[in-house]
């Protein structure tokens, strides 16, 4: 069969064609919303019109079978209208209140996991991992699965003091907002890469490989038409590997994950902040990474026990102090926690005020 005529530079279709009629009618004229249950919220317009959103969890990696099933459910109860959230959850958009109960019943029967709205652990933003990425030092989907299994009740029912935004990145390239999440797992390498000089000669540009290094550890090796790495300066980021694949950074024995905490992107109450290092290394232990889930559990429990209402993880830690955070979580404080990258001196304590 002949292919249809291709078109270029048309861009995406107009969003108006994908909005439920009640949204088109009340666009930009919403008054307030209320969370009716962990998986259901209603938005009320100034006109009095309402739209209900029923949220279910998604692993982000979806098969066409599952997407078709979601589409069929949306057709049955939502006039075919469905959206995805910025954290990869799925929202069924209900315009007719009488569809709300039957929709939830069908979702429950089909084992969809409803929840994630309000002060809870919503889904975990993550990267490709071993599923599809060249530079992964761990698997993102697997870590998300075991963490969300561990904290499923914080998605479906239980509340946290404020939203807990989690993220997983399968390398320090950090596709996704790991560097500004409440609790995040980031996979790291810990060994200086090895270089296949014959391949470097054919596949890589020496200047761009040198420029890719954040610490200036890479210099030319003219005799081999290649590069060399100063082991004392290398911080194992793997950026050289991305620019020049014959520089091999993977090391199954020494690769693993770090855990960072206390970041946020919203401006509410306190300014957006970066996540900071809590645990420098946990070995890769697939398929279920039990050491990672128990470490995150320890941090989350301390936050839930210690934070005031509305405080995010980072706000709680800043109020009590980082030294106190390490004390109450029992996490060891190591050389790796003290910054020695370009912004190090900004983090040194220049006051005599701290807690024992």
């Amino acid at each position: 069969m002949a292919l249809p005529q291709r078109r270029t530079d048309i861009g995406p279709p107009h969003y108006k064609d994908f909005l439920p009629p009640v949204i088109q009618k009340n666009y930009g004229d919403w008054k307030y919303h209320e969370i009716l249950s962990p998986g259901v919220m209603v938005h009320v317009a100034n006109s009095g019109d309402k739209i209900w959103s029923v949220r279910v969890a998604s692993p982000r990696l979806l098969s066409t079978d599952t997407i078709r099933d979601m589409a069929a459910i949306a057709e049955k109860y939502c006039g075919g209208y469905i959206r995805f959230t910025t954290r990869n959850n799925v929202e069924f958009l209900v315009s007719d209140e009488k569809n709300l109960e039957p929709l939830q019943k069908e979702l429950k029967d089909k084992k969809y996991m409803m929840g994630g709205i309000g002060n809870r652990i919503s889904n975990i933003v993550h990267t490709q991992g071993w599923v599809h990425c060249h530079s992964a030092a761990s698997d993102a989907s697997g870590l998300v699965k075991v963490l969300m299994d561990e904290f499923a009740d914080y998605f479906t029912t239980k509340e946290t003091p404020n939203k807990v935004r989690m993220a997983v990145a399968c390398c320090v390239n950090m596709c996704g907002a790991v560097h500004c999440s409440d609790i995040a797992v980031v996979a790291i390498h810990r060994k200086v890469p090895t270089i296949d000089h014959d391949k470097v000669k054919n596949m890589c540009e020496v200047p761009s490989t040198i420029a890719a290094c954040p610490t200036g550890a890479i210099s030319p090796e003219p005799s081999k038409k290649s590069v060399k790495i100063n082991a004392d300066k290398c911080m194992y980021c793997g950026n050289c590997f991305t620019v020049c694949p014959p520089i091999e950074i993977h090391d199954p024995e020494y690769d693993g994950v770090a855990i960072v905490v206390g970041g946020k992107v919203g401006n509410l109450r306190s300014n957006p902040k970066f996540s900071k290092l809590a645990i420098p290394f946990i070995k890769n232990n697939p398929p279920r990474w039990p050491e990672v889930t128990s470490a995150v559990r320890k941090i989350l429990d301390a936050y839930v026990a210690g934070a005031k209402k509305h405080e995010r993880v980072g706000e709680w830690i800043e109020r009590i102090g980082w030294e106190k955070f390490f004390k109450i979580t029992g996490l060891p404080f190591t050389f790796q926690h003290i910054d020695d990258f370009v912004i190090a001196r900004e983090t040194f304590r220049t006051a005599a005020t701290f807690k024992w």
Partner: protein
Amino acid sequence: MPKKYETPLLDELEKGPFPSFVTEIKKAAAKNDMAADELGQLEKSYRDKRGYWKHGGIVGVRGYGSGVIGRYSSLPEEFPNVANFHTVRINSIAGFFYTSKFLKEACDIWDKYGSGLTNLHGSTGDFVLLGTTTENLEPIFAEFSSRGWDLGGSGSALRTPSCCVGPARCEWSNIDTLDITYSITQEWQDEMHRPAFPYKFKFKTAGCAVDCIASIARADCSIIGTWKGNIAVDQAEVANYAKKGMNIQEEIVNMCPSKCMSYDGKELKINDADCVRCMHCIAKMTKALKPTGEKGATILIGSKAPFVIGATLSWVIVPFIKMEPPYDEFKDLIRKMWEFWDEHGKNRERIGELIIRKGMREFLEYIGIEPQAQQVKEPRRDPFFFWTEADLQK
């Protein structure tokens, strides 16, 4: 029938309450050779604790340098059906709204020409089709584009702009995030599909400072809706919140970062001149508090992940700009920024890194923006500063 792999390790990830990505891969693997080999290779990764993918290369659709990411198995003999396993990025709908009709069509195309696996959505916000062969790229593009869909960005190009749900379904939005996203996407199709930048460039648009799209952490240009004017207080609704158990002193007044609120048990007062518009009180007491006056956006530049100089958050360049169609003032400003980047940027240098390297002054002068105290947290503390000849004559 696709090859069936034993997957004892991955099977462990089908247990537990959260929906399983392994189950998803298995659903596709039951009828698709590529998905079957993806599953087999992933099991091997779990066994060996390492990935087996190679990246880069020369794949794409004719005329474009964007939208397709080359991906190859490093074990093509063992897993021949993923020897080529490229990603196709379809430009998503602003706000991530879809219809069942589109989703079903996309599934039909993808089952015919790809692995049957997707990412909804990728980190930048594309509708991601995960894994196909080189020869199927043109048919996929023909099928999607003939139905009105186009590819998103990749490489040294404008990446697919994305936004929060905005005025479509949120009462806090100060700007039309969906329209802005649609407008800039359409305006700069060439910049998206024919990579000509030093490196990637991302736009993210948030309707307010809650920033549900994480624009301040993940966009070279963060557009964040804000207002100039007072917060209107409905005291009857304030009383309702108090009646329902909200401790207004503790939860609202004490948590205000600029200490511009007070509450005497009856009346909530706001000193609007001191408000920094953080959104905490409005988000917690939506029915009682509403921004009034002029609406617009703060434009911040420069956030990115750690490579190369460490992670950055976007910083303020334009404290306030009106954002109304056709957004000419904003677009002209962006074009000037791109010119500056084109002139001075090195390969793989993000615009934020360039500004840090060249200094804010050179950037601001180039784009024609005055120095303003809102652009910094504090003035410089070192005594080392430049004077131009023109400065000396002032």
